């Protein structure tokens, strides 16, 4: 049996059983592995894609429900989306496994809410689990991508270590007494 899906702007013929969740069609049949398997029951958000612009958990969405729908995956963002640039600038990812889903949820948020508040971010992002605990940088990156942050974060090649006058050890200058808080 063949179905036709609209994925990342292309009509794609797929062979899978119509009850197969979109996630497994994307990953196993189409090789679009940026969308991740985390829980299989819409609890963690790692599988988030856009369906007609809305964030959707692909792990519980059978392809039978998607006829005529516009489906977009992380691969459709291209790598230079403002959120992706902000993710790199803030070094958001740790293990990275949840980040496709995080970015897709954030992209849907920004598409609808240009200047999200902390509460907006909480509401849009609390369905996406990050076990590495990158939440604070995700929040900062979303605000940055939305143009909400004031001073830019330290550029990757510009920073010098903060000199320390608290200890006289010679290596201390290299290590630095470095305070940082990426959350705001």
């Amino acid at each position: 049996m063949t179905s036709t899906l609209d994925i990342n702007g292309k009509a794609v013929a797929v062979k899978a059983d119509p009850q197969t969740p979109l996630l497994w069609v994307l990953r196993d049949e189409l090789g679009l592995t940026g969308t991740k398997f985390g829980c299989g029951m819409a609890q963690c958000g790692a599988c988030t894609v856009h369906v007609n612009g809305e964030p959707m958990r692909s792990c519980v969405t059978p392809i039978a429900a998607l006829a005529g729908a516009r489906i977009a995956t992380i691969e459709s963002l291209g790598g230079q989306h403002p959120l992706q640039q902000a993710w790199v600038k803030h070094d958001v990812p740790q293990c990275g496994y949840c980040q496709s889903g995080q970015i897709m949820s954030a992209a849907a948020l920004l598409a609808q809410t240009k200047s999200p508040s902390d509460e907006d971010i909480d509401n849009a992002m609390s369905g996406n689990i990050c076990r590495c605990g990158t939440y604070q940088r995700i929040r900062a990156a979303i605000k940055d991508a939305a143009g909400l942050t004031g001073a830019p974060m330290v550029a990757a090649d510009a920073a010098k270590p903060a000199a320390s006058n608290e200890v006289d050890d010679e290596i201390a200058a290299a290590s630095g007494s470095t305070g940082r808080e990426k959350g705001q």
Partner: protein
Amino acid sequence: MNRLIQKLQRQEGVSRRDVVVGATLVGGALLVGCSPADLMSAGSKVEPGAFGPFIQFDPDGAVTVLSKHIEFGQGNHAGLAAIVAEELDADWSRIKVVHAPANAKLYGNTTAGIQLTGGSSAISNSWEQLRKAGAGARAMFVQAAATRWNLPVGQITVKDGVVGHASGKSAGFGELIAEAANVTPPENPTLKDPKTFTLIGTDRVRRKDSLIKSNGSARYTQDVQLPDMLVAVVAHAPRFGATVKSFDADDAKKVAGVVDVYEIPTGIAVVADTTYAARMGREALKIEWDEGKVETRGSATIAQQWRDIAAGKGPADLKWQAFDSKGDAAAASAGKGAGVFETTYDFPYLAHATMEPMNCVAIVSGNKVKLIHGSQAQTLDQMNAAKIVKTLPGSVEIETLFAGGSFGRRANFPSDYVAECVTIAQKVGQGRPVKLVWTREDDMRAGYYRPLVHHAVRVTLDKDGYPATWRHRIVTQSIMKGSPMPSKGPDQTAIEGTAGSPYLKATPIVDAQLALPEGGVPVLWWRSVGATHNAFVMEHTIDQLALKAGKDPVEYRRALYAKAGAQRHLAALNLAVEKAGPRPAAGFARGVAVHESFGSVVAQVAEVKLVGGEPRVGRVVTAIDCGVAVSPDQVAAQMEGGTCYGLSAALYGEITLTDGRVDQSNFDTYRVLRMNEAPTVETYIVPSGNPPSGVGEPGTPVIAPAVANALLALSKTPTSRLPFVRAEA
């Protein structure tokens, strides 16, 4: 992850050689007369290049650093590359990092002798090794340029990957590769004076993988697609210790896409063309389990047994092992009345619950094995795979991939999920790749949890309100039992953090003992290992003692650190308190905790309030002394992430069992921290000239006692049981 390395170092009477040979016996191969590393590498085709095992140069001048350590979030690849780049004077923007192949001889953890990422040791065990590797390669390029230009070596400079001379002559690394490769590598290259570091310790040391982890292209085990590959899922027993009695696979084999069904030691494996088909096939299986030897206790029963043991009502043959004890033990049990403080603590089983459930790709062709997965302990995985296919560990090739988290889960003595995959791939045979996929439910119910732990503490205070005697009992299942490294002393993974505590050092009489009853639930190290409970017990007890003594908890700690000579604890505490400022945000109460683990000291000031009866953590001010901070940004990232990981467990984490069956199965029943519950962590690094110490784990264990101490300040109610938020009271 684990304290395996520290464990190996501490074991009295167990040499590194004993350890590795013991481990090799587990792998099934006994070879006498070779060095341990030779033995582990036997059959391996991995050879170092001209510039050693850690550095390769491309003709275009790009530099590739081979990391012996897996990157599963810790940021170690940034730090390891920076160490090389610093001594090499490479152009940081042209450094790449890849996972090294499996070879204990070339890529063994220098403190353990086997290839393994754990014990927060990636940077610390590589520090000297990679500085020398970078400096050695630099010296080879300098010599090559001096020879080419007929100039004295001392006049050659290297900066940002360009070798040059004051006369204007210059050449990139790429142009000099052939000549440099012919230079004899120096045995003891001159290392930089740390004062001249231009990269290490700066915010230029940033992750190399952020882009590929933001555009979906980073490759994890789950993403591996190979021609002709099959996907396997396994039906596991509902209780630990059960085996297959009988099964009916007729319906499973009728599912479209299912290729075959096998009985394996851990259950029934279904192999199929796709993940979905394999899962549908598994649902159609009918299995009868032999439960003759299963763990039938519930977690409440186990916890009660642990409490009984601590109260002296355990089995007569259960041995108690003393640690850190001094003075008249009887005095620690004596005394009554107002000066006596007594309490107990209960900690649940915890699942690692990595974002990427356990998985592995294996290809078995005859006696050759190739593994493609997020291997945390390559040498153990090699040994366990070799045992299954009856070959030498070196004949097991491993392509290490990024892993979607581990927190210790991906390294265990039997390589549980790897062994399962190899077993299936061997049955499939013919060199056909098999990807084993565990669902979230498989992963959460597979055991290897942080053990269930009970502590009983009794302290008497002297006339000034400081501990005069300290009686401590710890009851838990042993993580190290059954390991190739049998413990002669007390299992350090159970006591670390109580053992070695400055508070015990400051107490004249200590009677501390450990009991390790048996259990059928597989247990394992879990990010920060023993510190996960010992930090809580010590730090929350201290605040309760301070309250009893009528003293400020920060001043109380300062006095005890002075008594114990714990200068690093004092410095971290002072920095965190100073940066926190005079008062918390409106509506919040503060709690402080300080703990040393993996060679680093972390102090936190946490601001907490109650929202709907649940603790909500706002600002967390963190100070860490981790020696030289190679990447201050990634140290901060680990403090942020480690705090969230520890807070998630403290607030919600609990695996329970009913009659031996795990009650939780997915994130709906195993609640974890989410965006709206996440704190804002500020990180301050204590200036230090010491070599780097651990960063990945030390940020995890401090937040739970800091929150408990804030709640104590808020309500005068101590916490005697985690998690704070429980499904039922």
